[in-house]
């Protein structure tokens, strides 16, 4: 057993590094004013790209019927009627991709009315891809060293 697992140890160590290593903030935080228009069944702009630490001020509008704006991971949930605007303010302190979704039943495709806030550096994705490469390499090293073990 020990001998079988031994070749994987460097991979496991590297996996921990990839999964947990802290990454410093690169970009200087700024304040961003963004107008987001909700309409059946999409947001414009569909994707918001910001940097960690940025202060985000969203002006939310509805183009046709009442829509909502629920932001995963940030606990924000606002609603807006056509003709109104709603101001949403927060600091993008969590990195990764967070979907914003409509939270007011607005028609058939309402559950799929989704936009994306990407807070760079997108470490979750980068780490996942790193782990994926490691997983593939590790699997092949393991199969090479234990060609028969995999057959049981």
């Amino acid at each position, binding site marked *: 057993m020990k001998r079988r697992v031994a070749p994987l140890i460097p991979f496991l160590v590297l996996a921990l590094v990839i999964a947990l290593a802290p990454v410093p903030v690169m970009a200087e935080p700024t304040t961003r004013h963004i107008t987001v228009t909700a309409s059946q069944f999409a947001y414009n702009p569909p994707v918001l790209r910001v940097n960690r630490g940025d202060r985000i001020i969203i002006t939310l509008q509805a183009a046709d019927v009442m829509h909502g704006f629920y932001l995963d991971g940030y606990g924000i949930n606002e609603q807006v009627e056509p003709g109104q605007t709603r101001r949403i303010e927060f600091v993008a302190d969590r990195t990764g991709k967070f979907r914003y979704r409509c939270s007011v039943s607005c028609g058939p495709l309402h559950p*799929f009315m989704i936009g994306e806030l990407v807070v760079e550096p997108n470490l979750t994705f980068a780490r996942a891809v790193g782990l994926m490469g490691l997983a593939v390499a590790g699997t092949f090293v393991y199969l090479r060293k234990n060609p028969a073990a995999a057959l049981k």
Partner: protein
Amino acid sequence: MQNRFELTQYRWVKTMLQWRGFQPTLLLITLFFFVFAMLTGFFGTPAGSHNFAIIFVWIVWWALLIIVMVPFFARLWCTVCPIPAPGEWLQRRAVIRRKPGKLHTLRRRWPRKLRNIWLQNFGFLAMAMFSTIILTRPAVSAWVLLAMILAAVGLSVVYENRIFCRYVCPVGGFIGLYSLTSTLELRVKDAQVCKDHTTKDCVTGNENGYGCPWLVFPGKLERNTCCGLCTACLTTCTQDNIGINLRPFGADLLVEKGRSLDEAFKALIMLACALLYSAVLLGPWGWVKDWANMDTLPHWAVYAVSFIAINLLALPGIFWLTAAATRKLAGLKNVSVKKVFVDVAYSLVPMGLIGWIAFSFSFVFVNGSYALSVLSDPFGWGWNLFGTRNFPWTPFLPDVVAGLQILLLLAGLIYSIVIVYRIIRQRAATDALAWRGALPVAGFLTAVTFTFLRLYLAG
């Protein structure tokens, strides 16, 4: 067999499963919900998120099916599925009792050319092209359910047994294929006993029960695809030779017998659809949703044609090249590319299943809370049966989903690579050749995983 744990060794399990009323009782319960879903679909509110039909079929049932039943319990859904029940009862002229005599049908023979899952492949694709509409319109969902049950009854009038389930049901095809991975199986305890048993009651039926409605001879059963777990053979077998076992995940993926092109395509279609749905339904691109939603007919036509082309040409084409490369690297000169293609496609079964589970996590957790409000107000008419009607929409564990998806996808990738290595090793001359042969398929699997990760985690 290795690593099996027989559940039917317990008296009470066996007695329960041998009780003729076991399946019919479950069927009556699911049939009730099925009819109820049709009624809410037809007569309830057109707002999908407030209609029992949409929430219970496409969120609750779907989640149970793909996250719980298929990976762990094989075709358990088919044990309790109400769709073929009325037809089956009609041809038996009985619900629980074993009526003596033949089944009442027109006694036609199902065409030989259709004894595979191609019809199911095309049926699934046909539904998939309309899925954005089906998934979001209660009435359309209800029509689909009605059409399924009518088709099942119609086929039961013409043909004996569960022709609908084996060859037609668009869901049945992938339930069967993905059941290759399940941790549950029904098998004979000793194949020799079956060989020596001349009357083969499990096939012909006897006074205790009907012959296998799934047209399976348990004595030759080596993989889960066609076993509907109806437990008929447990009742009819006079030799006490049938067992239901727990087993390791993925056990049937290495069974060579039964591998076929129709199943290989099913594996590819399911994988392509998991990717496409993740992009279309969960992506930020409103225009794709509009096209899928038939905002205009030409838009939808373009969408549908591309959808089909990706499913039947693009992905299979790339995979064909992958298989050709595997054939070269693994030194399989005397095996045709087609054979290699079919073989290695079975590594897409665990990958696809995991992809579907990951996809389902992103909307089941988010929208699961609708189930509570819909339970109290199934038609959207303002009822409040259990006092939960006003339960607000609350995404459940939104922070955990991404992590779960990463873990699942990476585990699925590693597992699928090991499986493809073992599949190739069945033909390759040496370990080293099999190892090299696994490289191209691993590349394909990695690209698929990367695409999933990108869709779920990157902007």
